[in-house]
C-alpha cells in the first residue's frame, strides 16, 4: 500500500500495464514530455519513472494534433495486434474524433459479426470548475452512454482509478475513461500490487437506510460529505453509491438500495438533459416506482454552457450544500418550493 493521488494512480496503472504487456502503447499529444502528468517523469504529477526512458519512443509517441486520425489509428492498431491507450487530454477534444469513436470503435466488432476486437482505451480528463471556459470544460460522458459498443469508466477515487483503468487496458473492448480533474490531487492508500476492478459493479461507499445518494465522478466525494453532514446534523442515514462504470451501469445495486430507502438523490457534473442521472432516475422509475416515498432529485449542471468568470462558474455544478439540501428535502425536512408557496 502507498498513498497516491488520483492522477498518480492513473499513471501507475498505465505503467503497470505497459510493463505487463508489450502490446500496450500510449499515444497522444505531448505524452513524451508528460505534459498532462500521467506518463512518468518524477518531477511531474505521475509518481514514478520516465516512460520514454522506460518504454522507448516506439511505445510512447507524441502525435500531431489530429484527434480523429489518432483515434482511428489506435482502433486500427487494436484490430491488428496492439493494445493502445490514447491520451486525448481534455474531454472537450473528443468531438474531433467523434466519427471514429462512434462509427468505428463502437460498431466494428458488431458490424463485422465478431471478426474483430478493438482493445483500446481512450482517456480524457474533465476539467470543470476550473475557469477554463466553454471550450475546455466539457463532461460529455452521457453522449457516449447512448452509443452501444463503448464501455465507460468514471472513477471517483485513486484506488478505483487504478483498478478500473487497469481493467480497461486488459479489456478486449473499447473503453472510454473519463477522469475528473477536480479529483486529480485527491490522495488515498492504494494497493501497489496489480489489481483490477470488474466493470458493472457499483461501490457502496457508505451504507444507510433513509436516502440513497448516487454520486458520479467528481460529484461522489461531495455526496459523501453531504451524507456525513446529514447524519451528524439530522440523523439521516444515507447510502452513498458510486456506479464507477457507466457502461455497463449497475442499476441493480441502485434499485436494491432504493427498495430499502425509498428515496433517491442523484448528482453528477454533466449537463442535465439526457445525463447519466436521467438514465438512473428513469430506470428506478421503471423498476422501483412502488418503493419511492418521495420524488427523485437530480443535481446536475444546468442545460447551460460553462462561463469563464470565477464569479459565474461555480454556481453551475452540484455542491455538498445542494446535495445536502436535496437529501433534507426528500427526507421531508425541507419543504419544496411548491409546498412553501402553498403553505
Amino acid at each position: 500500500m502507498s498513498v497516491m493521488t488520483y492522477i498518480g494512480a492513473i499513471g501507475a496503472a498505465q505503467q503497470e500495464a505497459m510493463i505487463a504487456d508489450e502490446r500496450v502503447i500510449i499515444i497522444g499529444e505531448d505524452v513524451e514530455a508528460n505534459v498532462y502528468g500521467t506518463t512518468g517523469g518524477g518531477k511531474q504529477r505521475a509518481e514514478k519513472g520516465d516512460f520514454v526512458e522506460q518504454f522507448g519512443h516506439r511505445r510512447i509517441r507524441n502525435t500531431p494534433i489530429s484527434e480523429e486520425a489518432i483515434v482511428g489509428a489506435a482502433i486500427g492498431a487494436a484490430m491488428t495486434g496492439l493494445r493502445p491507450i490514447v491520451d486525448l487530454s481534455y474531454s472537450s477534444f473528443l468531438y474531433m474524433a467523434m466519427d471514429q469513436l462512434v462509427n468505428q470503435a463502437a460498431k466494428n466488432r458488431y458490424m463485422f459479426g465478431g471478426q474483430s476486437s478493438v482493445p483500446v482505451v481512450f482517456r480524457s480528463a474533465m476539467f470543470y470548475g476550473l475557469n477554463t471556459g466553454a471550450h475546455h470544460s466539457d463532461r460529455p460522458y452521457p453522449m457516449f452512454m447512448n452509443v452501444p459498443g463503448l464501455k465507460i469508466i468514471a472513477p471517483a477515487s485513486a484506488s478505483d482509478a487504478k483498478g478500473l483503468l487497469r481493467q480497461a487496458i486488459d479489456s478486449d473492448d473499447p473503453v472510454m475513461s473519463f477522469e475528473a480533474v477536480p479529483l486529480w490531487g485527491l490522495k488515498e492508500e492504494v494497493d501497489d500490487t496489480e489489481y483490477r476492478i470488474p466493470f458493472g459493479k457499483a461501490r457502496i461507499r457508505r451504507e444507510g437506510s433513509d436516502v440513497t445518494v448516487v454520486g458520479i465522478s467528481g460529484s461522489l466525494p461531495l455526496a459523501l460529505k453531504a451524507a456525513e453532514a446529514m447524519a451528524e446534523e439530522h440523523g439521516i442515514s444515507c447510502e452513498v453509491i458510486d456506479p464507477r462504470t457507466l457502461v455497463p451501469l449497475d442499476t441493480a445495486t441502485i434499485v436494491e438500495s432504493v427498495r430499502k430507502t425509498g428515496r433517491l438523490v442523484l448528482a453528477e457534473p454533466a449537463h442535465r438533459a439526457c445525463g447519466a442521472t436521467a438514465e438512473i432516475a428513469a430506470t428506478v422509475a421503471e423498476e422501483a416506482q412502488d418503493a419511492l416515498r418521495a420524488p427523485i432529485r437530480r443535481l446536475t449542471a444546468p442545460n447551460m454552457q460553462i462561463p469563464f468568470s470565477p464569479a459565474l462558474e461555480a454556481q453551475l455544478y452540484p455542491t455538498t450544500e445542494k446535495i445536502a439540501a436535496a437529501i433534507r428535502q426528500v427526507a421531508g425536512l425541507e419543504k419544496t418550493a411548491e409546498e412553501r408557496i402553498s403553505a
Partner: protein
Amino acid sequence: MLRKADLQNNTLLEMQRRMIRIRLFDERASKMVKRGYIPGTVHTSIGQEAQVVGACMALRKGDHITGNHRSHGHPIGMGSPLGPLMAELVGKATGVCRGKGGSLHLADYAHGSLGESGITGSSIPIAVGAGLSAQTLGEDRVAMCFFGDGAANQGVLYESMNLASAWKLPVIFLCENNHYALSTPAHTVTGGRIVDRAAGFGMPGVRVENGQDVLDVHEAVAEAAARGRRGDGPTLVEVMTYRFREHSEGLRINVDYRDTNERETWLARDPIQMHRAWLIAEGVATEAELDALADEIAQEVEDCVTFTMESPDPEPKVAFEDLYTDPYDMEAVQ
C-alpha cells in the same frame, strides 16, 4: 510489355479471374437488388475492376486493406470466396459478417479485409493503425485504404497522411478517382489535383492515368508496397477510372450529371476486355482458355447465389451478439 517479365503467367491470369469475379458478382448483385432479394442497395465496382484488382494483387498474404461503400470489389480482389459475401448482401446467417454488416460493411479477416465503411473516409485511419501495429510489432506487412475522389475531401485523409508520413508507416492511400461523388463531378468540388496533395505531406504521389489497365495499377501499388516494406513510409496512389453504372443500384438521379460522350469513351475502355486482349496478344492464354475461365466464374457466381438462397436467416438472438467480447447479456442492453 516490359512489365510482363516480372509477373508469372498465373498471376496475370489470376488478375483476369478476379476482375471477372467482381464483374459477375456485381452484375448478379445488381439484379438481386432489383428483384428485392437484397434489401437496400449496393454500389458496384463495375468498370473499376482493374483499379481494384491491380491494387489488391500488389499486396501479400498478411497485408491489410480497408474500404468504403463501393465495397464488394475489395474483398474479392483480396481473394475472398464469393458465397459468404453474397450471403452477407442478402443478410443470411452464412454471411461473412453473419448478416450483420450487409453490402456496405463487408469484412473478411481471413483475407486481409479489415472492413469496408459506409461512412466515406472513415476507414482511412484504420489502415494507418494497421501500419502502426506492423511497425511497432516489427511485422513485415503493409496496409492499404481505398477511398473515392469524393472522400478525398474528408479531413481525416490529411490527418492520416500526415501521421503516416511523420511516423513513416507502411501505408498506401489508394484514391479511386472515378470522377464523381454521387451526382457531383469531382472538378466542381475539388481544389487542385488529389495526387498533388501528397507532396505537401512529405510523401510521393503517383497518378495512374490509365486506371483501366490492371498492370499499370499493379505496378504503381507494388512500388508503393515495396516502399512501405522498406521502411520509407506511405504513398498516395490516385487511380483514374470510371464507374460504368449509377452511383448505386436502383438510384435514379433527376439530372444528367454525366456527359454521354464521356460515358461512351470510358465504356469503350473496359478493363476486362483490355486485359483479355493483352493476355491473348502476349500469348499468356488463348481465347478458348479465357472463355473457359469466364464460364467457370459464371458457375461460381451461380453457386454463390444458390449457397445464399439455401442459407438460413440468422436467428433473432444473433442481433444481440458481438457487441462486446464479453458473453452476451441481454439484460444489460435492454
